[in-house]
């Protein structure tokens, strides 16, 4: 019938428990968000794919001014996929703890696990969408394959890192103050046009370049484009800025997470 809970001790045991908990939360999250109706969990990546295809079509139709003669399909795919990646992560983590407070009664589940499960899900969805659309566009001849796939992956991972750190910071802060939820929407909306999704830095006037290069996400998006277009376009980014920024953001996120986790009061 029933069996005793395993008393795992030591680092190895704790990692095993955490892995188990995160995978359980991950599956639960898929079920609660997408259910078993119609295409079920496939919405995870079909939804971002619809967004990206829509934006690609729109930008192609309006010949969006992106300041260069780069192929618009690849430009839109890289730009909009990046936005989905860094913007949805905080969106899903804000308020996540409040929605799952009752889980704190299970001593195996830590606050961080709730965020990690949601981040893995967002990362998975955005990545599958990006990769699947990329493959489909290349196969159908709408887009040339990226010049340097490793640079694309590197940029993508840096954007994911930025998004995850921002998400944990915003998620933890949102548990302390409802203002975070209110301010995130205008903030993310305004950051979208500034994030480099819809322009190449090199196409901007010099003074504008200096300003947008303060925004860390611009560096990540430029790196992804560098991988796509390589010599065809001049991408401007500085890993010496983005990586230290990500490190600092991660530190702030973990400190805040610890502060909140120590004070969490379940219902």
């Amino acid at each position, binding site marked *: *019938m*029933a*069996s*005793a*809970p*395993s*008393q795992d001790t030591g680092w190895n045991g704790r990692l095993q*428990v955490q892995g*188990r*908990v995160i*995978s*359980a939360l991950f*599956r*639960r999250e898929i*079920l*609660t968000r997408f*259910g078993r109706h119609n295409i079920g969990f496939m919405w995870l990546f079909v939804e971002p794919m619809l967004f990206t295809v829509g934006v690609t079509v729109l930008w192609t139709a309006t010949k969006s001014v992106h300041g260069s003669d780069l192929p618009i399909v690849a430009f839109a795919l890289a730009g909009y996929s990046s936005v989905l990646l860094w913007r949805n992560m905080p969106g899903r983590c804000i308020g996540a703890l409040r929605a799952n407070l*009752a*889980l*704190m*009664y*299970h*001593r*195996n*589940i830590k606050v961080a696990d709730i965020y990690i499960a949601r981040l893995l899900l967002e990362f998975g969805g955005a990545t599958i969408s990006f990769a699947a659309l990329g493959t489909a566009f290349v196969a159908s001849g709408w887009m040339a394959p990226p010049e340097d796939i490793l640079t694309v992956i590197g940029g993508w991972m840096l954007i994911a890192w930025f998004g995850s750190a921002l998400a944990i910071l915003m998620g933890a802060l949102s548990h302390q103050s409802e203002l975070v939820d209110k301010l995130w929407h205008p903030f993310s909306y305004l950051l979208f046009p500034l994030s480099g999704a819809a322009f190449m830095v090199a196409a901007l006037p010099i003074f504008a370049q200096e300003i947008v290069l303060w925004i860390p996400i611009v560096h990540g998006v430029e790196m992804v484009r560098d991988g796509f277009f390589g010599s065809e376009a001049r991408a401007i980014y500085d890993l010496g800025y983005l990586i230290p920024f990500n490190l600092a953001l991660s530190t702030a996120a973990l400190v805040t997470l610890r502060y909140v986790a*120590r*004070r*969490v*009061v*379940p*219902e």
Partner: protein
Amino acid sequence: MSLKVENLRKVYKTRFGENLVLDGISFELEMGERLGILGRNGAGKSTLVRLISGAERPTSGSIASDMSISWPIAFGGAFQPNLTGLDNVRFISRIYGQDAEKNIAFVEDFAELGSYLKEEVRFYSSGMRARLAFAISMIIEFDCFLIDEIAAVGDARFHERCDDELFTKRADRAMIIVSHDAAYVRDKCNRWGVLHDSKMEYYDDFELAYADFKEYIGWKPPEGWDQLQVSTA
């Protein structure tokens, strides 16, 4: 194996300043001991359970234990209402690293919810939720069970089966039972505590605990109580 609570203190910051809920709570609990805690509403009973379950941290003091400690039994809040009963069983099984199919078989048998187990929990009546919550609470064999106001669960027959699971099959475990239902605590426990003004006093005799508890809740015997005869027609 034992649970050792030492000098537990819990302060909540509220809009009206600091609210001291628990102060200097210390006790030890061995396997087979069942500590019943009485206290009026808001005395801090549930807070104490949350601290011991590990869901919340004390302001100061320590809780040391080499026993595995349950979540509050029959606590239904941990359900995801838009998942089915079965999915909720699977989730708990995964969290604790257990065989989900075995647990499902037990819950099917014990909760007697039939095909409702395949429905989303939000469609359950409160009685059905209580059955599912109790059954799920029984699938993990903890050493120490925390029981917060369970007396209100289910109908009489289900009540009996819960008692059998908890107090007959698991008579060797440690338990902490929190309630304002004095009779339940009297029948089920072998040690008692009364929580009042953020302190706890301990008793080996229920009648002494109950006398103090009655005084704290302001219960006074009505006139002629001593002479009262219950008619047994």
